[in-house]
């Protein structure tokens, strides 16, 4: 894509639009300066490390669910990676087949002289990125930018600077970026400038307003975009700023997390929620790539990260966005059906990597740490994605409490996927079901048979598909549903009653016994340290695999097996994925092993903020960010939501001594619920009567204004 912003005839503005903007710009900038007083809401950086500039561009992305703008300095040049990402708009790409379109950044300013980065601050509460450059005690430049959460596709940059510094004139620019896959993006940007040269203050004020429209099938019309853009221009930056405060204020009311006693963790949780909220649209379809709208890595492809990690966060905090994510999968059911048919199967088989049209866009080769090509087999073998999609649909319904979520076009996500598994399972002479040659979440081991995670997810998918059929929500033959139940029961699950734990796959215990502690510390890139072949012959696990089962399907595993599986697999897990740390933290918390849980949680909260992967420059690890929420909500708060007909919201906290309280806001069955979790009690407040079960206690209905509920007698057995 070589789309560029083109100067156009200046819109019908004779300069009168600039009248009064100095006051509006100054008002916004002054109010943002005060945000520094709220350290648990701001990510602040002073000065500039050249090496970290691209990392900060990712950390400082501002987004609105439709567009994401990297947090580059306004004057950034060739050493940087500025850019704009538009959700769901892909283009043909020789390297990755289909990749998320990358457009030039609108958040730019011309400067007369080179300036240091100064102080930059991303205020999570308002979604505004603020900057101040002071030299010799004198402020030379201040800027603030945001993407309007309440007006997706509209973004604003305001700036005030020395007339000798700012070199920005009035401008009207347009962008037409048709995609080679159909559809594309249109944009229009207006710059209004009030030149202070010769004035009493010598300060120049600038407002850049950008509007974008996109389509996945056809390029959007110019008229609709122009009308929306005119409305944004007509209200002006100060009103748009007020709207932004209100929109984010409303969003935080339904999703905020606070760890009282750990301000850094609170900030990390809010940082995660901020970027999750900004990465997912809440209407239409939402294709949520592995890096969201923050960077080009992973080509914007949609993985299980989206279904299993990101979707639950949104289902619990902003259900409209979860629904848009399901819509993305629903619209690609026909492609999944074609993929199944191409393999001689029935039903729907979702691709490991998906983009524009739902075809499999997983590359067949990639580079290793030396830049040498190695084969990639996940596209052929990492089939659990099909059950993951079904799990996500069920999860969305469980949070809303509505079976209707699973009706209509959404049914296929559970029923057609069940039908795929029914045609995928091999039944042996003794009547046992097997799934041969797959890759589980642990990608160090390829082409394994009877991976416990894949088999149990498939069995769960078959049972839920059968349940939907039997509930009469689907016209499928009931005989087929009974067959699915039978297959689910027959499928081997890897559980060994003698040891009380699961075998990750057939033959796992026969592999070379290597513990990650012997490889020089955890996490560790075991595939590099041991080499790809040896790690494949060893018991070293890349990320939670058997343990991921305990996280996703806690009701489907034998009681007591979590502790046994944790004892066995944790010392074998390299955490070679940003997804691994938070899930282990969650499960360790469930087990009451809080010190270990906190150690991993501390790493998890720094995956992007501390650039622990060395790749944050290319975008944020959206699923890792979501994992932090999983750890806090499912792990430490012990929130458990399994079915649309759950009789109560289950809360069973494990609160470390060093925290005074864990506060969580979420939506359950249409109610806004605010929890304050302590070691011995939970305060529940909600927008209406809400049935809860705290610890092992009985069911209680809490009505507004809410109150403290003591923990039940004893605690639930993990």
């Amino acid at each position, binding site marked *: 894509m070589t789309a560029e912003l083109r100067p156009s005839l200046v819109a019908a503005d004779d300069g009168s639009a600039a009248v009064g903007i100095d006051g509006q710009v100054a008002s916004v900038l002054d109010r943002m300066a005060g945000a520094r007083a709220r350290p648990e809401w701001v990510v602040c950086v002073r000065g500039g490390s*050249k*090496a970290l500039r*691209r990392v900060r561009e990712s950390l400082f992305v501002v987004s609105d669910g439709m567009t994401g703008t990297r947090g580059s300095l306004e004057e950034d040049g*060739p*050493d940087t990676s500025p850019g704009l990402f538009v959700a769901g708009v892909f283009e043909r790409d020789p390297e990755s087949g289909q990749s998320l379109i990358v457009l030039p950044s609108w958040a730019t300013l011309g400067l007369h002289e080179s300036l240091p980065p100064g102080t930059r601050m991303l205020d999570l509460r308002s979604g505004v990125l603020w900057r101040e450059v002071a030299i010799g005690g004198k402020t030379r430049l201040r800027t603030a930018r945001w993407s309007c959460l309440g007006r997706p596709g509209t973004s604003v940059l305001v700036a005030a600077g020395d007339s000798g510094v700012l070199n920005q004139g009035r401008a009207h620019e347009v962008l037409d970026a048709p995609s080679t896959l159909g559809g594309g993006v249109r944009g229009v940007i207006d710059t209004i400038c009030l030149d202070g040269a010769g004035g009493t203050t010598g300060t120049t004020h600038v407002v850049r307003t950008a509007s974008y429209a996109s389509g996945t099938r056809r390029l959007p019309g110019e008229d609709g975009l122009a009308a929306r853009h005119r409305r944004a221009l007509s209200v002006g930056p100060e009103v748009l700023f007020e709207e932004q405060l209100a929109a984010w204020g409303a969003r935080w009311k339904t999703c905020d997390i606070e760890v009282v006693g750990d301000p850094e963790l609170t900030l990390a949780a809010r940082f995660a929620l901020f970027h999750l909220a900004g990465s997912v649209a809440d209407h239409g379809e939402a294709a949520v790539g*592995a890096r969201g709208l923050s960077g080009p*890595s*992973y*080509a914007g492809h949609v993985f299980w990260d989206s279904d299993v990690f990101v979707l639950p966060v949104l289902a619990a905090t902003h259900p409209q966005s979860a629904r848009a994510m399901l819509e993305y999968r629903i619209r690609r059911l026909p492609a999944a059906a074609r993929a199944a048919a191409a393999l001689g199967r029935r039903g729907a088989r979702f691709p490991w990597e998906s983009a524009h049209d739902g075809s499999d866009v997983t*590359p067949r080769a*990639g*580079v*290793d*740490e*030396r*830049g040498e090509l*190695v084969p*990639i087999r996940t596209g052929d073998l990492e089939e659990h994605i099909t059950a993951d999609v079904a799990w996500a649909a069920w999860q969305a319904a469980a949070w809303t409490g509505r079976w209707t979520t699973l009706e209509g076009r959404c049914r296929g996500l559970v029923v057609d996927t069940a039908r795929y598994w029914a045609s995928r399972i091999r039944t042996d002479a003794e009547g046992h079901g097997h799934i041969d040659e797959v890759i589980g979440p642990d*990608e160090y081991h390829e082409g394994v048979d009877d991976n416990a995670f894949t088999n149990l997810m498939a069995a769960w998918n078959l049972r839920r598909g059968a349940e939907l059929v039997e509930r009469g929500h689907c016209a499928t033959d009931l005989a087929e549903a009974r067959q699915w139940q039978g297959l689910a029961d027959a499928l081997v699950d890897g559980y060994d009653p003698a040891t009380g734990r699961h075998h990750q796959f057939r033959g796992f215990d026969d592999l070379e016994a290597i513990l990650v502690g012997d490889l*020089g510390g955890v*996490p*560790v*890139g075991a*595939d*590099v*340290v041991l080499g*790809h072949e040896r790690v494949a012959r060893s018991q070293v696990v*890349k990320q939670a695999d058997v343990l991921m089962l305990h996280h996703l399907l806690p009701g489907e595993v034998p009681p007591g097996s979590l502790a046994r599986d944790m004892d066995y697999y944790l010392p074998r897990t390299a*955490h*070679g*994925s*940003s997804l691994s*740390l938070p899930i282990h933290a969650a499960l360790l918390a469930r087990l009451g092993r809080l010190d270990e849980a906190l150690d991993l949680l501390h*790493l998890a909260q720094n*995956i992007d903020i*501390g*650039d*622990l*992967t*060395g*790749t944050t*420059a*290319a*975008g944020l690890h959206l699923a890792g960010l979501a994992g932090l929420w999983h750890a806090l909500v499912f792990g430490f708060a012990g929130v458990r939501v399994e079915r649309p007909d759950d009789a109560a919201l289950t809360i069973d906290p494990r609160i470390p001594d060093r925290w005074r309280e864990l506060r969580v806001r979420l939506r359950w069955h249409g109610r806004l619920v605010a929890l304050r979790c302590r070691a011995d009690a939970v305060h529940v407040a909600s927008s209406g009567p809400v049935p809860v079960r705290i610890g092992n206690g009985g069911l209680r209905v809490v009505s507004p204004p809410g109150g403290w509920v003591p923990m039940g007698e004893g605690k639930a057995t993990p």
Partner: protein
Amino acid sequence: MNTLAGADGLLVVPDTEAGTWAAVVEETGRVLGLDPHPTRVDGDVATDARRVWIEQMLAGVVGTEGPVLILPSTADARRSANPDRRIARAVIASEASEPVIGAAAILYRRFADAGIPTSIVVLLTFSALPRIWEGSGYHAHAWTNELRRRHGSAARDFTIVTGAPGDELQKAAAHADVLVLPWRHVAPEGHARLVRSVLGELPVPCLLVPLAWAQRSVHLRTPSSNTAGST
């Protein structure tokens, strides 16, 4: 040792070889913006006692602040593929740690500005891997791409190697006329293992550049490419 510690500019050791490598010495001085100072180090660089000489030399250079150009012994130099004794190609050794990357990027720019084709070889050790390594494919691609960019966006001739560092540098030096080694300026036994290993058998001159000096060198005069003597 005192003679080393007292000198300014680009130290060149041993002084006895400076004439043989006059063009390389001059060129290196121009690249760094420093005047070369051939300097004596006690001991015989060309005998079996070379390792003793290296220890004496290292003990001396830690007392200096600037770079040191270490010339090979005549015997080692015979193995060099550079009969003209000029710099047609330089190799900069780097690693995946921030201070070394910064120094390597600065040095790369200086050689490039002087018009000398230059490669960067990153010696990847396990301890230098990022804390979380997500594997081949997208992660490795994004990581190597960022590593390359941190070395300077112009660093196109860029290789990552994972073998024994000393062996890898010997291999890389076989295709170069000077090996540039940013170092932490700490020489006691247990440190600078790579420096010792490379200097033991190096067929081409080795430029040791302290990290702190490299950072400061951005303020020194930059070389112009129109005087580049290499071909």
